[in-house]
């Protein structure tokens, strides 16, 4: 074969792969849509059960024992190590509210739909992952060259984070519906507005720091996103609990939906953990970016809009972490800071790429 023929053949394969990638992404969207309906079904069936745990916990006069009961757990079989049971007591000032049962609300049919939804999510995740992989193979590089690729990778990672948390047996299925809803939005935006045919990168993007910087940035974004969803739900649940605690009667919808979520304190703690866990990685992302900028543009920090907004996002999250450590700023105020911080992250991604021109001009739109 002549070299021209080889290149042509390679080009054809690449186009073929890019095509496969597109098909997979569309298929993933279809399966996510099915998962979306299954989650809806879970919530709907779950609404049949009248749980009202939160209300019970908050309105009943508590017959708390003076001291936590003493328990020594004795394992039945001989193989299990004996260990005394640890009694956990929530911190001062915290409401003693049990976590909700989850979207299915204890309803058997609801639970079944929930399981179907998770299975569909796994399937969609695999298909989408395949789509991202095919895209990467078609361009022979990491799939992070433009906003279309960011979006598809981002949603894959966000769903991946969710599935890993499920796998670790965390009480997190309640995240399913809001997560899949936004994944569908994200993918819809990707295939319509942001679509860019697969192509190589400009030389400024040829650097292994790109792989490090961008992959951690996407991962951080996905985790921050999970944290933000938990924070928003915390705000709702907290308002709900407050209302109950002060003797109010929340609306039927609130009763039905919010009662099934974990307790506000659990949501808050979950959001904090998620944000705190990923903050060092976000710090690292910015530093990796600075190193890359040092090699590509001759200065490691130049207040380019993208750099500036990464910094703003970083400071906003640092604010949030400080707020959590400061009396008087815990709870709702800190939660607002977390949302502002995530807003900064979002703006850095969409806003700066689209409205502000800077050196990071790779958005492809």
């Amino acid at each position, binding site marked *: 074969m002549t070299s021209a023929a080889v290149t042509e053949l390679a080009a054809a394969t690449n186009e073929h792969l890019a095509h496969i990638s597109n098909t997979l992404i569309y298929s993933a969207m279809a399966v996510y849509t099915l998962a979306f309906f299954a989650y809806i079904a879970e919530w709907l069936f779950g609404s049949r059960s009248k749980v009202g745990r939160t209300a019970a916990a908050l309105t009943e006069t508590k017959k708390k024992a003076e001291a936590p009961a003493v328990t020594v757990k*004795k394992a039945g079989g001989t193989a299990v190590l004996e260990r005394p049971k640890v009694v956990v007591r929530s911190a001062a000032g915290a409401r003693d509210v049990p976590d909700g049962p989850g979207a299915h609300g204890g309803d058997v049919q609801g639970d079944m739909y929930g399981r179907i939804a998770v299975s569909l999510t796994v399937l969609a995740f695999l298909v989408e992952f395949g789509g991202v992989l095919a895209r990467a193979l078609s361009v022979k590089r990491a799939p992070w060259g433009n906003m279309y690729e960011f979006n598809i990778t981002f949603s894959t990672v966000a769903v991946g984070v969710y599935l890993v948390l499920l796998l670790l047996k965390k009480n997190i299925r309640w995240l399913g519906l809001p997560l899949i809803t936004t994944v569908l939005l994200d993918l819809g935006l990707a295939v319509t507005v942001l679509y860019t045919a697969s192509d190589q990168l400009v030389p400024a993007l040829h650097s292994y720091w790109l792989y490090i910087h961008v992959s951690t940035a996407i991962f951080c974004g996905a985790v921050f996103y999970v944290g933000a969803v938990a924070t928003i739900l915390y705000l709702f649940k907290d308002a709900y609990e407050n209302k109950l605690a002060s003797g109010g009667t929340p609306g039927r919808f609130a009763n039905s939906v919010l009662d099934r979520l974990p307790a506000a304190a659990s949501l808050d703690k979950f959001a904090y953990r998620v944000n705190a866990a990923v903050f060092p990685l976000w710090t690292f992302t910015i530093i990796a970016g600075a190193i890359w900028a040092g090699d590509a543009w001759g200065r490691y920090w130049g207040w380019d809009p993208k750099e500036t907004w990464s910094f703003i996002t970083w400071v906003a999250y640092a604010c949030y972490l400080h707020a959590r450590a400061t009396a008087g700023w815990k709870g709702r105020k800190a939660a607002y800071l977390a949302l502002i911080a995530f807003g900064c992250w979002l703006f850095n991604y969409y806003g700066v790429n689209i409205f502000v021109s800077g050196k990071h001009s790779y958005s492809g739109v």
Partner: protein
Amino acid sequence: MSTTSKTTEPDKAPNAGEDQDLGAAGSQLSTAPAEEATGLPSLGVIGWARWFWRQLTSMRVALLLLLLLSLGAIPGSLIPQTGIDETKVADFRDRHGTLAPIYDKLGLFHVYSSVWFSAIYILLFVSLIGCIVPRTWQFVGQLRGRPPGAPRRLTRLPAYTTWRTGAEPEQVREAALAVLKKRRFRARTVGDAVAAEKGYLREAGNLAFHIALIVMLIAFAWGQLFKSEGNKLILEGDGFANTLTQYDDFKSGNLFSQDDLDAFSFNLKDFTGTYELTGPNRGTPRTYQAKVTYSVGAYGKEKTTTIKVNEPLKIGDSKVYLVSHGYAPVVTVRDAKGDVVMDHEAVSLLPLDSNVTSSGAIKVMDGYRNAKGEKEQLGFNAFFLPTYGGKGSTMLSQFPALLNPMLALSAYHGDLGVDSGIPQSVYQLDKANLKEFKGSDGKLFKKQLTVGQTMTLPDGAGSVTFNGIKEWAGFQVTRQPASGWALAGAVVAIFGLAGSLFIQRRRVWVRAVKGADGITVVEMAGLGRSESAKVPEELGDLAAILYDRAPGAPDADDSADSSDTPDPQVVPAEGAEKQ
């Protein structure tokens, strides 16, 4: 408050009392400054100063300053900045006649070096230092101190467990001490209980992080003060020595001095650019590199290397970046008599767009005589397209590589004004004292040339031959000292941060006393700095180990609840499960 209160928020009141109960046990679990009431001082100047200092170094104000810092950074990302793009600023000034002076007053065109932005971060860092110094001392004190004794009622703590055992209290305490020490707790026996603490690395990490922030800031400021940045455009085959005079333009920090320049020189051997030929990104660079030979010091040995976009040449503190590329048509100019006045000279032109449509000027300064034999100067406006679309196409290049090069010249004669003492751009003609050559149509004389073609000036005034094309590469030489410090600070910051966020500082107490019935009661409790699932988990692990060494004894009121299968080997009878 007391437990008799019957409000609808039953938790708050009793808990307040309970917390006081914890007293010393929970103290000094961190070195975070206590939040003080915002009451105003009634003292004199010193009182006020002290009050101000306390405010400045409080977490609340730190939080506020952090918020302000992020808010303050926003305008700089939305308004054009002189430090980044001067032309955009000029453009903005032209378009916003009323806004621009206001922005100027507020320093909004250079936010990151403006007074107010500096004020925020300097205050923040003063606050940071004011926060760190006492915290460090306190931490050292805590390292030397010992974990506080057990609180009276361990049941009040967030994680708690207890069991009865046949072992003696002293035995249990000894075992507990050994177990805790093995788990790298700092432990000691106080009275009837063992007190232990672990996780000091959290505080160390936190301090390291905040100190690293200061190091980073200083390194950044140092870099700004001593930095230098110069640009040089070099033709293939030409060279450059790193001295101030050789630069086309040069910027430096306030404290930079010429002696700071690293001594080196280099020659551009070859520039290679290849571009995407097809597809939507046609014309996007694929390879973009410059082969150079360089030598360090005055008489260094010559070495060869390739400079690419992400791979600068590093010499000392300096880095040489490949930042641009363009074309330089090679021309020969003859005067009226046919004498060569400009011999195969390459004239660098500046690229205007991504397809390297280029423009510039060819200036013939001396040696030229016109048809009348008078001394004169020649000037040409040059426009160059590496890929010309052909007749009737726009005067914009279609592709960045040399597929169909075309040089368009328009000709002037007279005085170039180069001797007037006013510095002028080599890429532009000063037409004040220049006259146009007129074509046969009476308009400005223009001609489009392909390589090898010659343009004959009207009235036998001479000719210009387009001999060929050379390429040039633009280099930026930057020197940003202390970037190593910035990097080191960053690395420490990350590890410190990870330590401060992932490590829990926690305390464990084990109390063993003889109960009224003469059987030893073991109580264990754990306290973390913040509520965490890890503390109870760890307490459970510790309890399991200790339980092994001090196995359970029958509960006093166990008789009713012995349905479990007995396990004669381990315990004589069951512990009870009750809530």
